[in-house]
């Protein structure tokens, strides 16, 4: 087995046994990057040779390269959010998640391509380039953490960090045949994550399997003094006791969700997964949840509203690109107009409108009320079942260059958005493939801070499904 084909735990084990050194691990992955990155286009900046890598002699992840989405503050690489506006900008500080990875010995392999400011589901909205799906280079890896998904799927790194505001970890994980975990809001510090929508954003890992996701969460989770919204709760060892029998879990299938407009292969794979759970003694019941499009509707008010405010700081005054040399108004307008891509501008406009006098009550405030109602309904459902099971996305990976209506694209978030609206943890894991050989994902959503059991359930489902999911390319 090549080094680049190994997952996190295999790498750690090989190193512990003395079969591999930290240097060999990092060299192996850098070779792999140098071989396939030209096709994958997953990195916006990266290590090109191991002399640039600082290998520590401590920590589980020592010598192991981890890729980081381009919206997390790093000292080693620029943090541009794949936006022209921030091109080449390096933050003067490091985000907490990145710092924790480094403390665990990891080598930051580079920054991964994304939809600009995390807005989109394809990486086509990147200000720099479009990443490719290693399963089929004519297809997209999804988004907005598409670069992170692509580089893990291609074996350029064994794991990567993504951020998930409405499904941006889980959807690309599903498209790229990976495991993507969005932890409970507040369990991983957002300090250093360039905000898209503060009340929805959450950092999480993209890995080759569920156990690696648990391993990553062990490193990432915890209260951070720099983030007042990070939760002050005990985080158990997520990897210990992860092997549990599926018969110990009760899954809820939301009524009507599988009758939505789904790609037939997606529907088939998710139904198969449900069958396999039942066959293996797991309990599956139907549950009543708010209509799927309701969460989506308020998401597209709340997220742009927060984004319109969060992105106001990119005004050309202090950092990033500054355009226009006339008066201040002109500078603001030119900097923002030419720096932001159309999707970002569309959402800023939506958000500004939703918050503006006269519309705030009927849009933003109403959305907040509905958000509370949805939370309550999910809470009630979690009294009945341990987890909700849904497809991760209605379709397999999009084809590159396909004309897609923005509204239609927004609908691809229909299954992932509720977990962000409610703050719940959710995980996407491979459920098999479409007829075209593209990966399909299945999603489990749990109640707040139920990650330990969520990972157990996901791990048992992964065992049952037993999908052969090799490194691509």
């Amino acid at each position, binding site marked *: 087995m090549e080094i680049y084909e190994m997952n996190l735990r295999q790498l750690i084990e090989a190193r512990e046994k003395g079969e591999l050194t930290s240097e060999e691990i990092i060299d192996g992955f850098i070779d792999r990057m140098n071989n396939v990155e030209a096709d994958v286009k997953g990195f916006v900046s990266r290590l090109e040779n191991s002399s640039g890598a600082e290998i520590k002699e401590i920590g589980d992840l020592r010598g192991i390269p981890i890729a980081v989405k381009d*919206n*997390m*503050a790093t000292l080693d690489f620029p*943090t541009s*959010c794949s936006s022209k506006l*921030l091109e080449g*900008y390096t*933050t*003067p*500080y490091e*985000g907490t998640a990145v710092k924790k990875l480094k403390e665990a010995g990891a080598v930051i392999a580079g920054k991964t391509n994304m939809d600009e400011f995390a807005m989109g589901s394809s990486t086509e909205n990147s200000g720099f380039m479009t990443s490719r799906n290693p399963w089929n280079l004519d297809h997209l890896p999804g988004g907005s953490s598409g670069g992170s998904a692509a580089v893990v799927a291609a074996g350029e790194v064994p794991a990567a960090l993504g951020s998930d505001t409405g499904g941006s970890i889980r959807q690309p994980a599903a498209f790229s045949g990976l495991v993507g975990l969005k932890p409970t809001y507040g369990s991983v510090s*957002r*300090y*250093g*994550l*360039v*905000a898209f*929508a*503060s*009340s929805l954003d959450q950092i999480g890992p993209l890995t080759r399997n569920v156990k690696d996701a648990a391993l990553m969460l062990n490193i990432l989770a915890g209260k951070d*003094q*720099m*983030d*007042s*919204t990070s939760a002050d709760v005990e985080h158990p060892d997520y990897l210990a006791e992860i092997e549990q029998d599926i018969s110990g879990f009760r899954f809820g299938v939301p009524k009507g969700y599988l009758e939505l407009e789904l790609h037939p292969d997606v529907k088939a794979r998710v139904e198969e997964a449900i069958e396999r759970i039942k066959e293996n003694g797991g309990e599956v019941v139907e549950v009543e949840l708010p209509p799927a499009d309701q969460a989506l509707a308020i998401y597209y008010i709340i997220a742009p*509203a*927060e984004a*319109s*405010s969060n*992105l*106001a*700081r*990119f*005004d050309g*005054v*202090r*950092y990033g690109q500054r355009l226009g040399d006339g008066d*201040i108004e002109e500078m*603001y307008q030119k900097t923002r107009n030419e720096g932001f891509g159309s999707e970002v501008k569309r959402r800023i406009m939506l958000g*500004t409108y939703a*918050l*503006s*006098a006269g519309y*705030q009550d009927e849009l*933003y405030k109403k959305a907040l009320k509905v958000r509370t109602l949805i939370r309550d309904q999910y809470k009630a459902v979690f009294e009945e079942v341990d987890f909700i099971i849904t497809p991760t996305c209605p379709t397999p990976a999009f084809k590159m260059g396909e004309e897609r209506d923005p509204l239609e694209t927004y609908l691809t978030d229909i299954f992932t958005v509720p977990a962000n609206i409610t703050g719940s943890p959710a995980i996407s894991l491979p459920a098999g493939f479409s007829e075209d050989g593209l990966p399909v994902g299945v999603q489990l959503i749990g109640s707040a801070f139920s990650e330990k059991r969520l990972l157990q359930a996901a791990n048992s489902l992964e065992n049952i499904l037993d999908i052969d999911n090799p490194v691509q390319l």
Partner: protein
Amino acid sequence: MTTNYEIIIGLEVHLQLNTESKLFCGCSTKFGEEPNANTCPVCLGMPGTLPVINERAVEYALMACRATDCKINQYNKFDRKNYYYPDLPKGYQISQFDLPIGFDGAVTIETEDGYKDIGLTRIHLEEDAGKLIHAGSVADSDHSLVDFNRGGVPLIEIVSEPDLRTPAEAKAYLDALKQIMLYLGISDCNMEEGSLRCDANVSIRPEGQEEFGVKVEVKNMNSFKAVENALSYEVERQKKMLENGDVISQETRSWDDTSNKTVLMRGKEEADDYRYFPEPDLMPLEISDQWIKETDDNLPELPLAKKERFIEDYELPEYDAEVLTDDFKLANLFEETVGNYSNPKEVSNWLMGEFLKLLNEEGISPDESNITGNNLASLLKLIDDGTISSKIAKDVFEEMFNTGKEPEAIVEEKGLTQISDEDKLVEIINNILDENQDVVEEIQSGNERPVGFLVGQVMKETRGKANPQLANKLIREEVAKR
């Protein structure tokens, strides 16, 4: 017939809390540092950074609220006020919108007609913005620089009800507010350094009319006097407009100190839509009953109460009580001294007279001199037991003020003990009488006025050490003997 107008004034005061660090990060709030020395990624709003609340600032805000009888929103939260300005690094200011920390309070002011309560609509916490430095004037500078040292410094905004009826009342309100905040020790209220800033809303209406007139906002007043002047000017301007049949438009005006006029800054049509919404990066602020109770228990005695008590307990004239309580440090010194010396009026006289005079000359505050309650009491006792004269005492006091030495030591060192030895004085007096034969004759002829002159000569001869009462008595006796 001329119409009488009623003046309606409401004030918005921004007060910088004197915490060591900023509202949402650990940066220093020290004034006068190099530009941008007191900044970090958080207060510069660098991408990815998050605010973390400074609890001390909340504590101070809570004190301000309770000292002004505000009710507390025990569940309050921060909101974002969105607008673009180069000194606003995040593109929004973290403030409080619909749930301010305190509301519905009052500040008592003294007017010619007695006490009057000025209502407070709200007190809320917010962060300050930075400061722009223009190359030349705003209009023609080719570039501007930003100093973010002030960015993120904690402020409270205190919004009054439109209860003020004259510019003088507005000034009295500011005085009272400042005094309370200084008593609490939560702000230095220094208008020059920008730690106290004030905007005013002014309207007038014909007496008897119920609805308010059109409100004009006046900004950029940089002293209490300027507030009073600006309001007086604005009221007159509005009166003239109404009398000329003009319509007052809702606008923001700026006070220009050099021309003593308010000038148009912007009209209503340029008003911003701040798109307030709850700050998602901060948890709501929850203020427990316990926290409120602790705040109440630890509030110092406030100026008005202290003044009343000084009148009552020490039988001081209202004027004295007012002067002494104007500054809590002065009031403290008074009480310390009275603790060691039983004549409050005498203490008051010394503090209001010599002490304030010296403080003014030095330009320092009461706690910066060397006078303590102990050494002042000792000095007053030395006068009472005749060791030194009141006149000498002033010199001793000045020495104490400057050096902090005990009065006994100064008297001893400089040999200032009063001459109360009759034989010695008689000898000196007779010498003086010999030299002033004409004066002696004048007194003998029944004119007593020159006695004072002779006392003066004795004091001069003894360099002030003679007991003046005794000298007076002995001069009369010796003149009579001749």
